[in-house]
């Protein structure tokens, strides 16, 4: 098992804010790797560092043995990493089919002149892209919406369409940013099946997820981020029982004793969440 993605000492500083501090982990080819942590722990910032939206202040990201830090987002896609967004970012006025074809286009090479003069390659690629897009829509269970505009799909289907679009770029590693957010339990279950299917088709998955049930049931390995640092890494069961993880999620004193602990929890949880949110100013709008 080779390591596919290596995150080496990545630090991300926004002015005085340290969103990520010295983050290290490795993802092995063919696994589903879960990345969890409280709100504002730096999960999405880490995604942005890997996918070229941000250049990390320090440290390096390696993909399949080659450094990818400092590359543009579109170059990262060429190399074989694609992502979805926490806040859904489809192309709202394009059909579901067109959304996915934009992803397929990333692997095509028709030039401006090829397009203007309708080169044979353009003809072949256009035909291919439609077949491939339909296959992926089917794979993600949204084929019947192929002709609907992206914005007209339901929330859960938009998430599936976003996954289909990401898979269309034929990534070796796909980064899913909270794919289950806002889904009901049945939809979540369907999503779990989908993520497994993606892995079984040979794509490695890096998953950000808040829903412990989803992430624990799905991941081969898990890393926990808190305040921009990896506080635990390993198999889901190990991580779940790690006192530092429990502390990060439930607050200090949570595991200590009974009695007033509950009150303390809720008291320390709220401000913690608020300040943690404020720590990610450059993140998603």
């Amino acid at each position, binding site marked *: 098992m080779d390591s596919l993605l290596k995150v080496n000492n990545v630090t991300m500083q926004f002015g005085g804010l340290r969103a990520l501090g010295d983050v290290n982990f490795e993802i092995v080819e063919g696994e589903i790797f879960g990345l969890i942590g409280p709100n504002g722990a730096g999960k999405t910032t880490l995604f942005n560092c890997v*996918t070229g939206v941000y250049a990390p202040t320090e440290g390096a990201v390696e993909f399949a043995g080659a450094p990818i830090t400092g590359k*543009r*987002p*579109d170059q990262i*896609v*060429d190399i074989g990493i*694609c*992502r979805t*967004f926490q806040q859904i*970012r*489809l*192309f*709202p*006025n*394009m*059909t579901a*089919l*067109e959304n996915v*074809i*934009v*992803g397929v*286009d*990333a692997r*095509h090479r*028709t030039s*401006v002149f*090829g*397009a*203007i*003069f*309708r080169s044979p390659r*353009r003809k072949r*690629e*256009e035909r291919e*892209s439609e077949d491939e897009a*339909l296959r992926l829509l*089917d794979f993600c*269970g*949204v*084929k*019947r919406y*192929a*002709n609907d*505009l992206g914005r007209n799909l339901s929330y*859960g289907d938009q998430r599936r369409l976003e996954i289909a679009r*990401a898979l269309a*770029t034929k990534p070796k590693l796909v980064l899913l940013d909270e794919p289950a957010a806002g889904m009901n*339990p*049945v*939809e*979540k*279950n*369907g999503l*779990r*099946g*989908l993520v*497994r*299917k993606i892995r079984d088709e040979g794509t490695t998955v890096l998953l950000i997820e808040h829903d412990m*049930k989803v992430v624990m*049931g799905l991941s081969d390995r898990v890393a926990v981020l808190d305040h921009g640092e990896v506080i635990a890494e390993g198999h889901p069961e190990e991580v779940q029982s790690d006192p530092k993880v429990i502390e990060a999620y439930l607050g200090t004193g949570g595991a200590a004793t009974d009695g007033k602990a509950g009150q303390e929890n809720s008291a320390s949880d709220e401000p913690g969440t608020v300040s943690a949110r404020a720590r990610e100013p450059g993140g998603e709008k």
Partner: protein
Amino acid sequence: MAGSDRDLRTYLGDRYPRTAERIPDEVIKVAQPLFGVWRAIGYGRYLLAILVMIAIPILMKPEIVPFLEDFDSPIPYINGSFGVSVLVDTGIYILLALGLSIVVGMAGLLDLGYVAFFMIGAYTAALMTDSGGAEQFHFVVWPNLAALPFAVLVCVLAGVALGTPTLRLRGDYLAIVTLGFHEIVRQTANNLPQTNGSRGIPGIERPQLGPIEFTVLGSENYWFYLLIPAIILAVIMIRHLEDSRIGRYWTAIREDEVAAAAMGVPVVRMKVLAFAIGASTSGVAGWIYAGYLTFISPANFPLLASILILAAVVIGGLGSISGAVLGAVLVQGLPQVVREASGGETIFGFDPETGRIAVFGFLLIVVMIFRPGGLLAPKRRRVELSEASAAEGVIVDETAQPSKDEIEFASSVHEAAQHKEGS
């Protein structure tokens, strides 16, 4: 397939989903064969368009269409200098609107200084050809026709030059920069001795195609015929781009730049490309304009022209090729005809020439309220889905049924939620 009843309705449905449903079956039945012919001729429809357009100036003569003699029209018949000059003006605006529709309509880059490219094209043509009475105002003396590729090339390069440093900006910021770009180009032409400042360049040579001289008197037809292939080539070029990954990339950037970059779209390069290709049609337009008027000065390229072209693109429908053509006709052709038809009289207290700006402002607001996509919205790509896949369930995984684990989880979530509500 081509003869089936669904075909025309599906075709219309791609553009106007709601309107298409309301068309009665009888209309579809009657129109279907015509539509079939239209589809069957393919590129022949461009040929048809060429023939019709060639026929217009020839046929609109009293000798050929007798009723024109009795017809007491205030508009001089079309072969006269007025009628065809309206057609030429409109044609030039169509070329400009087509170029701008790439930049604003497809790629979503708000360009308020588009007329700067038009100006660059016209000045390039003027400075490269023998400008009659004022020999000092040219770099080289070439036949007018030889300046055409250079006018296009210089415009494309100007597009790249403007685009490269500025296209990292978004939205309003880009709009302000393009506004400034127009002002820079205009003021440069206004102050350079080589361009004769605000007095402009007079006596620009007209092209000669074999025996056809584009001389001043009665040459409008030739200019009109020159515009037809230019417009048709531009339409085909844009149509082909729209229908390829390049066009989809532009639309993706317009829709969501961050998501486009994350899907492998080289955003900055595609934006520069949009500027460059958008500028290319204005190079042709500028070259025609310079030769047609034989005189250009900075006053011919006011900011208002940029706004009017933008209005044409927006009224017609952002990202729509036929919309850009229609918009240009509405913005440039129609007011001239109305003005001439009114015979200098005011309409509702408006002088039609100056009043048109107010009318367009009003029209823009009306269009934006009732048809936010413009009069002719662009079509979206759709596929024919088999009945089976169209009826498919939302979730196709075999894991669709909730497992025990999942039901437990669902109920625990439910309980937790109730617990939370209760506390």
